[in-house]
């Protein structure tokens, strides 16, 4: 069974230590919520997990193996969702999704199915520039389903979503975990996911802010 863990993680941003001595461990089928006040380092930790940032101290491991040993493999198994929705205004929703699927080179799942899951199948042929904020976010979430990644890293995924879409997201995440996937979510609001771990980030803020 896959495991994803970090030990003794510390991160420096703009000359400040954001968190230090942070440990976590996650097993297949589990979801973890990152909580904490503004500036506590939720987004930072997610980018660290994705490999976009390197930790100042500590190490991330996949099945006990440091991910630094196989960064390509790590990138191959994760899907990241950040603050932006990378939906090109001149490509249709389906074209946007198809591109991301082709890029990963993974067996291409059904684009229509993914759109359907988030209630926007009827928008498949509509160019991105006509989509509202919430609709763009749904396209971005549909990308997760197509990616087939086992590790989802999601930064405030429910921004701009209405109730119905938020419910669809909850279901999708639950299904992903049930199928043996993992998810890490940074959030300010209660998502109502069943059986999640919580990581409160303010606990790791160093008392002395300067290194």
């Amino acid at each position, binding site marked *: 069974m896959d495991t994803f863990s970090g030990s003794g993680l510390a991160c420096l941003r703009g000359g400040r230590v954001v968190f230090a001595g942070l440990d976590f461990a996650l097993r297949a089928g589990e979801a973890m919520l990152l909580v904490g006040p503004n500036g506590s380092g939720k987004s930072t930790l997610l980018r660290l997990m994705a490999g*976009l940032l390197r930790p100042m101290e500590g190490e991330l491991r996949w099945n006990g193996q440091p991910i630094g040993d196989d960064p390509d493999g790590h990138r191959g198994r994760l899907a990241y969702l950040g603050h*932006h929705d990378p939906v*090109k205004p001149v490509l249709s929703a389906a074209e946007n999704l198809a*591109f991301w699927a082709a890029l990963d080179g993974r067996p291409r799942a059904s684009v229509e199915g993914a759109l359907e899951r988030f209630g926007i199948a009827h928008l498949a042929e509509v160019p991105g520039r006509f989509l509202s904020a919430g609709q763009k976010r749904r396209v971005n979430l549909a990308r997760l389903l197509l990616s087939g990644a086992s590790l989802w890293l999601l930064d405030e995924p429910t921004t701009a979503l209405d109730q119905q879409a938020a419910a669809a997201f909850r279901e999708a995440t639950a299904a992903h975990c049930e199928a043996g996937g993992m998810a890490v979510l940074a959030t300010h609001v209660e998502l109502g996911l069943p059986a999640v771990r919580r990581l409160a980030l303010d606990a790791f803020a160093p008392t002395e802010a300067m290194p």
Partner: protein
Amino acid sequence: MRGLAAIVRRDLRLALRQGMDSVMVVAFFVLATMLFPFGVGPDANLLARIGAGVGWVAALLASLLALERLFQADYEDGSLELLALSPLPLEGIVLAKVGAHWLTTGLPLIVASPLIALLMNVGAEGCGALVLTLLIGTTTLSLIGAVGAALTLGARRGGVLLSLLVLPLYIPTLIFGVGTVAAVIDGFPAWANVMMLAAIAVGALALCPWAAAAALRQALE
């Protein structure tokens, strides 16, 4: 490979749908060239003498302008993060994007360059030399420019010095490009110059994707 082809296809499609890209680059090229007759006076002989130089400078500027936002859109809408997180090597991704970009902006420049030669009174052989040197040279410019574009994405992190380093890197290409055309017009053998141009292009092909990828990683930190 399939992933890289997908990037090229997407970027070409974006350029096509957004339209005008190629047209505008060419328009700038012609406009920038046009400035010189006003600047130095519409003296046909003089224009013919500086024609190659002017054409090259204009091409350089056009390519600089067009490249400036090579990664910008993808950076701003978060696509770049996802590209960097894809299993493909970032160097390959840079190359694919530069390739698509060259097809939509570099190539039209080259196609338009005979027009410049006409406007500037450069003769037929000079024109041929201009096209050939631009063909080799614009690839170099695109590659070096990609490094600059990547650096300016993360310029907040003190990239001033580095981006200043990129501009001078254009100079050798220019010197040999203009030199080739001048040699051809004057009837001298120009192969040495062309070889140098090609050598620079190969060097850029080897180094630039790597440097640009490093700069992009920094920008995404």
